[in-house]
C-alpha cells in the first residue's frame, strides 16, 4: 500500500483553528472570464517579465505578451482574447502600483490547446520538459511564486534523489489544493511523473495532512492504478507543515541547511500539488499558466467557494460571484491568514501566486496593539526554525541589524507561528521582514562597492 501514516513531524509550529469547513465541500467552479484583465509584469520571484506587445495589439488566449528576463524569470500570457488597452502602473497584491498589461476582452474565448495532440510523456527528454515548463510561464502556485523551471534545473554537482509533492495545505481556510487533489488526482500523479523525470529522481512522495485523508487515499489509489512507485505520506495537522523545509524534515528526516541552503542541497525538490497539476497540463497540452484555483473564504463572504479564475481578474468579481459580503470585512487577505498579504483595493487582480482570497470579519482577525514582551518564550517554543524571535525582534526594534543577522534572522521563513502565539501581540514577522530587507540591501550595496 502506498499510503503511509506518519506521526513524526518537525519541532515547533502551531495549530490555529482550521476553518477549512467553510469552503472544503465546494467543488471547483469555473469563474466566467472577465471583460478586462490586468496582468502585472511581476507575478513571480525574480526579474519582471518584459512586454512583447504594445497598446492596440490584438491578442488571443495563451499568447505570450511578455517574455522572461533572465534565468529566474518567466514569460506571461494573455488570459483572455482581446485588445491591449494599456501598459501602465496598476494596483498589485503587494500593495503598490506596479507595471501591468491590460487586455479588454472581445468576448471570444477559444482555448486552443485542448485540440492539440496530447504529448506522450515518455517521449520527452528532461530538457524538453524544462523548456515546456518555462514556456508556460510556470511558477510555484503555493503562494511564493518561484519560477518552476529553475527548480527543475538543479546544478550537476547536486543530484536530486527525491521529489516531494506538497499537498499539506497547512494554512487555515485554504482548500484549493484539497479540491484539486479530490477532483484531479490523475493529473497530479501525471505531473509528479513529469517532475520526477525532469530531475531523474529515484523516489517520489506526496505529503498530505491528516485532515485530508480522503484526498490522500485517492492519490494513493491513483498511484497504484498508474503503477507508479510513489508513497503518499499522511502527516500530522500542524502549521507550517507545508513549509518545504518542514515537509522534508517530516517525510525524510533531512534538515535543509540555513540560507543560502536549499532543498536541493539535501537532494530534494518540492513542488506544490497545484503547480504539479498545472505542469502536467503545460507539458501534455502546451497550456500556459493563464488560470488557477483560488479559495474565496472567510466569514464576510456569503458563499465561500473554490474558483478556477483567469489571471488578471479583479478580486471584486470573485467576491460578486460568491454572493458578495455577508458581513462587513475588516481585512481582506490574499493567501492564507498566516502568511497572506493584506489588501485594500478590490480592483487588484488575481496573480499567479493568489492561492486564496479571504474576507475576514472583526471576530476572525485579532486587531490588537503591540504590547510589551513578557519573555514568556512562547515564540521560541513554536519557531520551526529554532530561532529566538523575541531577541531578534528586540535588535530589529533598535536597528541593530548585525546582531539580528548573528541570530540567523535570514533563516526565518516568515511562517508567522511566533507572532500568532505572542500574547503581547508583537508583530514579530513584520520586524523580521524589515530586518531581512535591510540586511539583503546592505549586502547588495557591499557587493556593488567591491566590484
Amino acid at each position: 500500500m502506498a499510503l503511509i501514516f506518519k506521526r513524526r513531524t518537525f519541532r515547533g509550529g502551531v495549530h490555529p483553528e482550521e476553518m477549512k469547513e467553510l469552503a472544503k465541500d465546494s467543488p471547483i467552479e469555473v469563474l466566467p472570464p472577465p471583460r478586462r484583465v490586468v496582468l502585472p509584469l511581476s507575478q513571480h520571484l525574480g526579474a519582471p517579465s518584459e512586454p512583447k506587445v504594445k497598446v492596440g495589439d490584438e491578442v488571443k488566449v495563451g499568447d505570450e505578451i511578455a517574455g522572461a528576463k533572465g534565468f529566474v524569470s518567466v514569460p506571461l500570457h494573455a488570459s483572455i482574447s482581446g485588445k491591449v488597452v494599456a501598459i501602465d502602473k496598476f494596483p498589485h497584491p503587494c500593495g503598490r502600483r506596479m507595471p501591468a498589461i491590460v487586455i479588454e476582452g472581445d468576448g471570444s474565448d477559444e482555448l486552443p490547446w485542448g485540440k492539440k495532440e496530447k504529448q506522450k510523456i515518455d517521449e520527452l527528454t528532461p530538457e524538453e520538459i524544462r523548456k515546456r515548463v518555462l514556456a508556460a510561464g510556470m511558477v510555484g502556485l503555493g503562494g511564493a511564486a518561484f519560477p518552476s523551471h529553475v527548480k527543475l534545473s538543479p546544478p550537476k554537482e547536486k543530484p536530486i534523489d527525491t521529489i516531494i509533492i506538497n499537498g499539506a495545505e497547512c494554512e487555515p481556510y485554504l482548500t484549493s489544493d484539497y479540491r484539486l487533489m479530490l477532483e484531479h488526482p490523475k493529473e497530479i500523479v501525471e505531473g509528479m511523473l513529469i517532475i520526477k523525470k525532469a530531475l531523474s529522481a529515484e523516489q517520489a512522495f506526496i505529503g498530505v495532512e491528516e485532515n485530508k485523508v480522503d484526498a490522500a487515499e485517492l492519490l494513493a489509489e491513483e498511484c497504484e492504478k498508474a503503477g507508479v512507485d510513489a508513497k503518499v505520506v499522511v502527516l500530522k495537522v500542524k502549521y507550517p507543515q507545508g513549509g518545504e523545509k518542514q515537509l522534508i524534515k517530516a517525510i525524510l528526516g533531512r534538515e535543509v541547511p540555513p540560507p543560502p541552503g536549499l532543498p536541493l542541497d539535501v537532494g530534494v525538490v518540492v513542488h506544490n500539488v497545484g503547480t504539479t497539476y498545472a505542469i502536467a497540463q503545460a507539458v501534455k497540452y502546451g497550456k500556459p499558466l493563464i488560470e488557477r484555483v483560488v479559495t474565496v473564504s472567510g466569514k464576510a463572504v456569503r458563499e465561500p467557494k473554490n474558483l478556477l479564475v483567469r489571471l488578471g481578474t479583479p478580486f471584486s468579481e470573485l467576491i460578486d460571484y460568491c454572493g458578495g459580503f455577508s458581513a462587513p470585512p475588516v481585512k481582506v487577505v490574499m493567501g492564507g491568514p498566516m502568511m497572506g498579504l493584506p489588501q485594500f483595493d478590490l480592483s487588484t487582480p488575481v496573480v499567479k501566486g493568489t492561492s486564496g482570497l479571504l474576507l475576514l470579519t472583526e471576530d476572525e482577525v485579532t486587531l490588537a496593539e503591540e504590547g510589551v514582551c513578557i519573555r514568556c518564550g512562547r515564540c521560541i517554543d513554536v519557531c520551526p526554525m529554532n530561532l529566538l524571535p523575541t531577541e531578534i525582534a528586540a535588535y530589529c526594534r533598535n536597528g541593530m541589524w548585525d546582531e539580528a543577522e548573528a541570530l540567523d534572522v535570514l533563516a526565518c521563513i516568515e511562517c508567522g507561528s511566533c507572532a500568532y502565539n505572542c500574547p503581547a501581540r508583537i508583530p514579530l514577522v513584520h520586524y523580521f521582514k524589515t530586518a531581512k530587507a535591510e540586511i539583503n540591501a546592505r549586502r547588495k550595496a557591499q557587493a556593488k562597492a567591491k566590484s
Partner: protein
Amino acid sequence: MQEERLKQKQSPNDKSGVLTAPLKFSASPHILAPEDVPKIMRGVVWALLPAGFASIYFFGFSALSVILISVAATLFFEYIFLRIFGNKGSIADGSALVTGILLAYNLPPGSPWWLVVVGAFIAVLLGKQVYGGLGYNIFNPALVARVFLLIAWPVQMTTWILPRPPFPKGAEAVTGATPLGVLKTEFFTKGTIGAAKAIHLSDLFYGKVGGSLGEVSALALLIGGGYLLYRKIISWHIPVAYVGTVFLMTGIFWLVNPDKYINPVFHILAGGLMLGALFMATDMVTSPVTSKGKLIFGVGCGIITVVIRLFGSYPEGVSYSILVMNAFTPLIDRYTKPKTFGAK
C-alpha cells in the same frame, strides 16, 4: 441623507463587491492565538487562589488583611509610577495584581500594615518600574521587596503566627518558629535535629505550620501549580529541576547522616520551596526563555537553596536563590541559544 450614508457605511454593499468601510492593513499573520497577556496574568491569579484560601483558613483575618492591603497598595503604586515614568504597560495587564498577591504570600501573616505598604512600594518601584516596567525588570519584584523588608525590619519579618482554628475562641494569636527555624536552631544549639523530627510531614503538606502566609500549604500550591501547567502558562522545566535538585541534594546529606540532616521530603514541603519553585522562579520575565535554560535555572536555584539551608545562618534560602539566579538569566539565555534548523 446623512443617515442613509451612515447606514451604507456600516453595511458594505453586498452585491457589487464595493467596499464602503476602510480595510485594516497590517503584516501577517492575520489571526492570533486567543491567549494574551491579561489572560495569562488572570490565569496566574486563579492559580494563586488555593494558597490564599489556605492561608486565610489557617491564619484567619490577619492573612486576609495582608493580602488586601498588599494588592491595593501594589496597584496604587503601579498606577502612580506608570504615570511618573511613562513606561509601557497598564494596570489592566494584570502584572501588578500578580505582584501584589505574591508579595502578600511572602510576608508573615499579621504583618503590620505599614510593612506591607512599604513592601508594595519597593516591589513596584525598585523591583519593576525603575527598569522600565513590565518585561524589563531583572529581578522578581515581590522577592526584591521581601529581601528588602527582611534586611530593614528583621524582627517584624520573622515574627510568625502559628496556625489556629478558623474561628478561635481565645483572643491573642500565638507566635512561634517555622519548621525550618526549628531545624536551624536545633542544629546550631545541639548539633542534631531532634525537635524538628517531631514535626509531622502531613502538617507540612497541608500547611498547619508557621511561615509566610502563602507558602505554608504545599497542597494548595500544588493545586495552583498544576493549574498553571495545565493551562501551559508555565512549563515543567523550572519546578521539576528546582524541586528535584533540592530533593536529590538533601537526600544525599540525609543518607550520609540522618542525625544531622533531615529527610528530603521535609525540605521539599517546608518553607517557601513550593511557592518559589511553582510561582516565583517560573516568573517569565525574570527566568530564561528556552527549555534548556530553564533547566539550568532550576538546578541553580536548587543548589543555592540547599547550600543556604544546610550551611547558612538563615533558615530559608528560596528567596535568595531565585534572586541570584535571576541575575544569571541573561547569561544563561546567551549560552543556551538553540541550534538553528539545519545548522551544523
